[in-house]
């Protein structure tokens, strides 16, 4: 020891020795898991914790958890999920648990030589299960799933290792078979099923079927079944309860493979439990090659994870949205070649709030041929931009807080409460803001935001000093009207006194290809504003004049060059027989103009409020 301290080459040798052994492989895996989660998936982790409102000591919150099987595990999972607020910290915990799982598997399986590399398999698969979520994240309302899966599997492997140690002791084995599943069930609900399966496999494989074991196993199965059934299975379709808190259908493939890997390990290594001396491996797993194989395994995990660029951009935009970095949002969105609808929606919000960009000038300078989202499971696309997009709408107008409430029904989340607080503040509902802030104050990390925001309660006028709030307060509707539920359109369709509101309404009408509505709203525009239209609006008027009603052309002074371009566009469009060819040719010739958008962009599928009905072109 002293030698290595004094002698650098000895230290180097020790490090080399460590890296070439099991310790090196474990270090590589741990660092990979930590950095892959904490750096590459940092926005994803941050988003997960946005769904997680943890008020650990609240009786209602606790009651909600304790009424479901595996509530204790979910509680622990929810507690740890809070730490994704700082993704590197949360990732450190997750990586530590994955490494612990590898250690537990190694302790149980004790594979030798190169086979010992398989000890990493369950951990890698579990990491993969967590990072292949993608868009399914929005549908999965239980935010604790990464930690629940990790702790649950750790418990399973721990229980099975304990069971294995009872080999050759029939009475102890029978007692373990009886108690272990019940104990695991009490803590982690349906993870007990995996323990039961593992124990059955172990017993079958080792051939140590003492008379007591099978009846005991049967008892354990029955007991766990009774507990499950008695708990909440009384509802007819209680299958969802039966498997709680195992990760749900969105994760079932990778998680299922992880389970199979664990059970296969039991099956393959069961003979070892007979107590027979371990044969030394023919080829010991030392040297650089095993380390390289581990690194390759990590690389494969990273490669197989969900790495959709648009998904990552959306998460980034959501984070920027929270930071109110409007210009950065526009820049980020503009860098995307083939955006999704969500990216477009966030860009629109950023344009509306930005002081650098203009909604009217910049909105249509974008690719609206949306790329559909890629997800293993079918995800309704509207949902993806609904939550945050409408939360934004909730802020300027208290009426839209119902959207926040919509999110709240699945277990309210910090982002929802923050939006509700902001809405209450701009509307000067201080009692209501106080209520929401009190709740946020009980969280571990979101209380930081709550504490920063609380000072507005003492002097609400200071809210106006913040540009974001000032912008909203200045644009708040002054006239009370009622409308039906059409969330997204409300953000832009309200016509107030200022020019920006008019602009929003006009852009909204164009966005939804309601050319009649556009012209009608344009007609309400004060004269000076109407004569100072951006070129996109001029194109829209020309397009409306040439395709719907020629009188529009008489009302506004449209430059001749715009008019002739639109006329030529239409002439060529009418002459074409091949739609796809025309799409490329017209874009090359005229650029991404309003007529091009009207004809070729994907139709927005949103129901427009009745007040805004108009002709839908194409």
């Amino acid at each position, binding site marked *: 020891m002293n030698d290595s301290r004094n002698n650098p080459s000895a230290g180097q040798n020790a490090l080399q020795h460590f890296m070439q052994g099991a310790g090196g492989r474990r270090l590589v895996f741990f660092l990979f898991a930590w950095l892959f989660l904490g750096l590459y998936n940092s926005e994803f982790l941050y988003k997960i914790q946005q769904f997680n409102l943890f008020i650990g000591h609240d009786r209602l919150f606790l009651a909600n958890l304790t009424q479901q099987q595996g509530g204790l595990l979910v509680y622990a999972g929810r507690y740890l999920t809070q730490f994704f607020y700082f993704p590197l910290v949360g990732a450190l915990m997750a990586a530590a648990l994955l490494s612990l799982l590898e250690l537990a598997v190694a302790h149980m399986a004790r594979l030798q030589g190169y086979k010992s590399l398989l000890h990493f398999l369950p951990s890698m698969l579990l990491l993969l299960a967590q990072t292949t979520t993608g868009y399914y994240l929005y549908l999965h309302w239980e935010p604790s799933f990464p930690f629940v899966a990790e702790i649950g599997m750790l418990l399973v492997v721990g229980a099975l290792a304990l069971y294995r140690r009872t080999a050759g002791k029939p009475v102890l084995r029978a007692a373990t078979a009886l108690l272990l599943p019940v104990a695991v069930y009490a803590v982690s609900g349906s993870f007990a099923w995996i323990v039961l399966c593992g124990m059955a496999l172990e017993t079958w494989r080792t051939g140590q079927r003492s008379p007591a074991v099978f009846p005991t196993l049967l008892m354990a199965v029955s007991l766990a079944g009774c507990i499950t059934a008695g708990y909440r299975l009384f509802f007819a379709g209680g299958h969802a309860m039966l498997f709680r808190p195992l990760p749900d259908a969105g994760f079932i493939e990778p998680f299922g493979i992880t389970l199979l890997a664990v059970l296969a390990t039991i099956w393959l290594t069961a003979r070892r439990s007979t107590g027979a001396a371990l044969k030394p491996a023919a080829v010991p797993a030392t040297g650089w090659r095993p380390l390289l194989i581990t690194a390759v395994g990590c690389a494969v995990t990273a490669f197989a994870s969900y790495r959709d660029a648009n998904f990552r951009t959306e998460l980034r935009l959501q984070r920027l949205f929270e930071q109110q970095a409007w210009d950065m949002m526009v820049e980020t969105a503009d860098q995307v070649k083939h955006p999704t609808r969500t990216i477009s929606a966030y860009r629109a919000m950023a344009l509306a709030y930005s002081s650098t960009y203009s909604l009217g000038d910049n909105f249509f300078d974008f690719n609206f041929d949306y790329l559909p989202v890629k997800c293993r499971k079918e995800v309704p696309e509207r949902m993806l931009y609904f939550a945050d997009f409408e939360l934004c709408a909730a802020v300027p107008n208290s009426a839209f*807080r119902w959207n926040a409430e919509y999110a709240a029904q699945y277990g309210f989340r910090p982002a929802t409460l923050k939006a509700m607080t902001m809405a209450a503040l701009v509307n000067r509902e201080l009692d209501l803001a106080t*209520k929401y802030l009190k709740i946020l104050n009980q969280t571990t990390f979101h209380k930081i935001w709550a504490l920063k925001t609380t000072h507005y309660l003492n002097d609400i006028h200071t809210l106006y000093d913040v540009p974001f709030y000032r912008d909203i307060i200045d644009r708040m509707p002054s006239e009370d009207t009622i409308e039906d539920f059409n969330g997204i359109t409300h953000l832009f369709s309200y016509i107030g006194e200022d020019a920006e509101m008019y602009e929003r309404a006009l852009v909204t009408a164009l966005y939804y290809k309601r050319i009649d509505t556009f012209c009608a709203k344009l007609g309400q525009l004060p004269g000076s504003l109407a004569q100072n239209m951006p070129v996109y609006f001029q194109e829209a008027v020309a397009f409306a004049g040439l395709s719907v009603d020629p009188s529009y052309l008489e009302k506004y002074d449209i430059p001749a060059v715009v008019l002739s371009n639109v006329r030529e566009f239409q002439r060529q469009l009418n002459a074409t027989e091949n739609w796809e060819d025309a799409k490329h040719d017209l874009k090359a010739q005229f650029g991404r103009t309003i007529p091009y958008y009207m004809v070729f962009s994907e139709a927005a599928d949103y129901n427009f409020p*009745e007040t805004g009905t108009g002709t839908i072109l194409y």
Partner: protein
Amino acid sequence: MARINLLLIFLTLGFLSACTPKVPDQTVQNAGEVRITPDYIDVTIPYNIAPLDFRVMEPADRIRAVIRSEQGRQMVLRGRHKNIDIPAKAWRKLLEQNKGKDLYIDIYTHHDGHWTQFRPVCNHIAAEAVDPWLSYRLIEAGYTSYGATGLFQRNLETFDERLVYSNAIASDNGRTQAVGGHAVRQHNGAEWLFQVRDEDAGLMLVNHDDIRKIEVMADSLGGTLMFAAYHPTLPLIAFSVNHNMQVLHSTLHERTDIIDFASDLVLYDMQRQKLSYILRTEDRFETQPVWSPDGAKLFYCSAACPEWNDSVSINAQLNMAYNEIRYDLHAISYDAGQGRFGAVDTVFRFTRGNVSAAFPNLSPDGRYMLVSMARYGSFPGLQHISDIYLLDLETRDIAPLDPVNGNYADGFASWSSDGRWIVVSSCRDDGQYARPYIAYFDTGGKVRKPFLLPQRRQMEHVTRLASYNTPTFMRSPFTISPRQLYRKISGPADVFIAPADQE
């Protein structure tokens, strides 16, 4: 040995006395009123109510509270994190020993190295008990989403709250349902009803252990059964059939609204399993029926229907007309012998004062009527300005129920079975989330300051993001389990009904 025993006894006594909080002997007097939340000061409470746990809002590092009355042992309590949690048994005993007397709470706070004693809080213990159960729906406060909506019952003598049925049960089983309003017959939890909308829709009638699912041909009705009133003696239920729409306001403070497009009254005969119209008018809306205690009259709210113009979009029309829809209080006589309804009478013309009446609720003696009053419409809980009014049907005097009304919406009020207690669904605390406040109504027709439904932790009212909707006192609890209800709801209907004149 004896010495050791003696020592042990002394040690035990010493330990116990150290654990028992003492009343501070050297205090600075503060003549001011102590700030506590909920506001349990100068309220009248029933002797069977659960402990009124509260939180002291004064600066303090230590707190003592002494709860005392004329009879019985006083309680000396230590505050934990400024919360005073009252032991249930001792509280119950103290209240029962002091019916009709005052209850005092002395509060001591320790701050800056000295104890301060505030002016004692004085509450009154009524001689009458309150009905021990309260049923209500917990709904999302905006009335627009319903994923977490559920019907609950709460034991007022303890903190026990039980789920009766919730939308979450349906969604857990892959169904989308909305738990509609409920009604209880004569405050008896053995006979009650509630509605289920969306998937497996139906009217659920519960009579002891018997659950019946009634499927109503909604198309033939032109709306859905909404507000129900059991006849006090006969197997009849009056319903309003409403075709309405939820809308959003663009400005503060009224966020959402529910506007009637059509509403009529129907009568369901449970024995004959027959539905018939009571009132079916084209030019008026009729809604929210309530029977008189003798069953000879049916009170309801009635408004003139705006003239809808088909050439204008519905949103534009609503914007022109929604705040002109105002309801008066009407009544129609009922001859139980003939089984016929008679003439319509205007009980009180609220529209004369440009206000609208909603949710009439008659006292058990039939003399007083609680009415919620708002600027327009029949959903006052959605308007900040709404208040509860008391209408004396003998003198026709009407007055705001002032100690009960708060700064925000007070949208619904109902009576206990003996008429001595009123429960109000009030948004007074934050303007958005309605909570149940209970007030004593004395024999002289005066109402006392209400108190908030006690919870084990004061924060529970804060963290609960739901409104208490239509709270109703009950003498006995619902005994049907959620499981039984779910099974019945997800099964086929027992009875299919359509209005008689359309059969």
